[in-house]
């Protein structure tokens, strides 16, 4: 949305004297991005829902009635209670309980934490790896470039879920089948990171090749700055907006991948379930009529992914200069 087509909201920050503390705030309010954000009701809704999920995850221990990871707090006498609004519902369990007497709502809140932690860390890891390899490939060029890009080409032909499963299986076979829940979280981050780095690397490399020929890089080289400094301080900031888009969309993909791995039984264990694990457990009770054990985690996962995807779609269009 260029200034010619859609005029700015000029009344947002009228006084010219910016204090440095409120300066960035005014810049955000006056930006094109914020303006296009405010114009789309769907995007605002998606952002609010995403924010809500993050807040729920952060404050999970305060909201939930029990800690679902602590076996001492689970009582079998409370097992398979339907949601509160049905005839057999019981008071503390708003969304009912599962086979082990675990409150479904608490399990969702804690599972959400794991899904988001794995998603965010996975995106951070794949982003760091991809950006680093892309910078090196683009800046150094030559044989290093072809090697990295050939690996990327080969990996791109394989779906991420297959690579994640393979990484998972290999790590398991090296460490034996007795990884505890916390290290399983690390394995998932590793598997997701290694599955999703290619897109970052390709994008960064492309931008680096464009930026490299510009005068400011030549100037930086002339004054004798070392290559890593030029790459990180001067080239990288100019490649950030496509990376932001990829990271948002990949957050949704990473959460899906984690949920899928957990659903397939090679992710988080039953003792420390993520949303995917909860869905796998609940799936076993689908036929005996306990629909709430699978329905609510499934709904939470779908809503989370949909809202992040909508945010990603909006960000892609808003940052794309061709669509302005």
């Amino acid at each position, binding site marked *: 949305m260029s200034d010619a087509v859609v005029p700015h909201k000029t009344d947002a920050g009228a006084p010219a004297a910016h204090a440095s503390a409120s300066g960035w705030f005014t810049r955000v309010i006056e930006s094109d991005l914020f303006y296009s954000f405010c114009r789309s009701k769907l995007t605002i809704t998606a952002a609010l829902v995403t924010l809500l999920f993050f807040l729920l995850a952060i404050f999970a221990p305060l909201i939930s009635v029990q800690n679902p990871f602590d076996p001492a707090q689970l009582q079998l006498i409370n097992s398979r209670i339907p949601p509160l609004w049905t005839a057999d519902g019981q008071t503390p369990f708003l969304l009912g309980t599962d086979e082990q007497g675990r409150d479904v709502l608490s399990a969702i809140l804690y599972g959400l934490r794991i899904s988001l932690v794995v998603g965010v860390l996975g995106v951070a890891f794949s982003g760091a790896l991809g950006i680093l390899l892309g910078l090196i490939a683009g800046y150094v060029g030559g044989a290093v470039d072809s090697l990295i890009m050939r690996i990327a080409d*080969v990996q791109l032909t394989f*779906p991420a879920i297959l690579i994640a*499963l393979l990484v998972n*299986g*290999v790590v*398991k076979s090296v460490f034996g089948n007795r990884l505890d829940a916390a290290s399983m979280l690390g394995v998932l981050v590793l598997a997701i990171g290694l599955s999703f780095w290619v897109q970052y690397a390709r994008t960064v490399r492309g931008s680096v090749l464009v930026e490299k020929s510009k005068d400011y890089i030549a100037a930086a080289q002339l004054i004798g700055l070392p290559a890593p400094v030029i790459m990180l301080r001067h080239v990288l900031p100019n490649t950030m907006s496509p990376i932001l888009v990829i990271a948002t969309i990949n957050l949704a993909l990473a959460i899906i991948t984690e949920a899928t791995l957990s659903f*397939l039984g090679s992710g988080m264990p039953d003792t420390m379930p993520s949303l995917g694990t909860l869905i796998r457990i609940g799936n076993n009770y689908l036929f005996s009529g306990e629909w709430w054990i699978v329905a609510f985690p499934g709904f939470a996962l*779908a809503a989370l992914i949909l809202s992040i*995807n909508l945010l990603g779609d909006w960000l892609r269009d808003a940052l794309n200069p061709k669509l302005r």
Partner: protein
Amino acid sequence: MLAFTLRRMIQAIGVMLAVGIIAFAMFRFAGDPVNQMVSIDTSAAERAAIRKSLGLDDPIIVEFAHYFANAAQFKFGVSYQFRLPVADLLKERMPATLELATCATILAMVFGILMGVYSALRRDTLLAKAFQAISLIGISLPTFLIGILLIYLFSVTLGWLPSFGRGEVVKIGWWSTGLLTLSGLKALIMPSITLGLFQMTLIMRLVRAEMLEVLRTDYIRFARARGLTTRAIHFGHALKNTLVPVITVTGLQFGSVIAFAIITETVFQWPGMGLLFVQAVQNVDIPIMAAYLLMVSLIFVTINLVVDILYTVVDPRLRATISRPA
């Protein structure tokens, strides 16, 4: 043209070699193959004998050459869990996966093209908007959730369709097919929809975008000026030209359909290669994992190669651009 074909083939062989090295590394270094094959009370001498018979004492290069030569003859070793040759297991499971993937692809193409054409021609109708919404859901809902939803709807609530397995199968040679029995066909419906939904949304979006693009071109305007019927223009001229990229994408995606079948097969307990692979990952059955990786890569690389070569045959413009830099 010949140079291009050769270069692409060498590339394909390179990729297969790289995947082969990874598969071999997994097979050889991830866990000790001997430990996986023996029980606790096997003596050290017996272990050494097995080690020797497997060729694990040879230099690594010899071992790799050995593994590769075997793999080329579809000998992938013996599964740790089943104590059966991996090749036999894969052969037994392959028809199920291929039938599922083919049905899903056909389903995705038919409905994807229909919905895409409709939403391009009648852009502002309610139905077109509904299709767009469906495509967003198809991309956002994880495959396994769609499967569970279908099972709940059609198996648990309505009781119309079976929720797991392939139904009755008929053997034709070593190929077992579920396409010839009623229960087999019924069992195929939900897994195909689950697996095909993602491809369908992809095809629908592609057809819609391509169709909108083509409808703006001069030759369509010229066809209108000539007074051809709308139907002839839309389906005879516009659709025909959008189909080339659609077929390419569908062809290239067939490999990932096979890979995504892993999830669908787990949800529906479909006895295919994907389910075998998932169980192998859970039980750390490295020979099956390595063999599955090799098989799927072979399918991927072959499809990519065929599509690339066919593309230059079909589209003369590409031939010109390829031969120029060469």
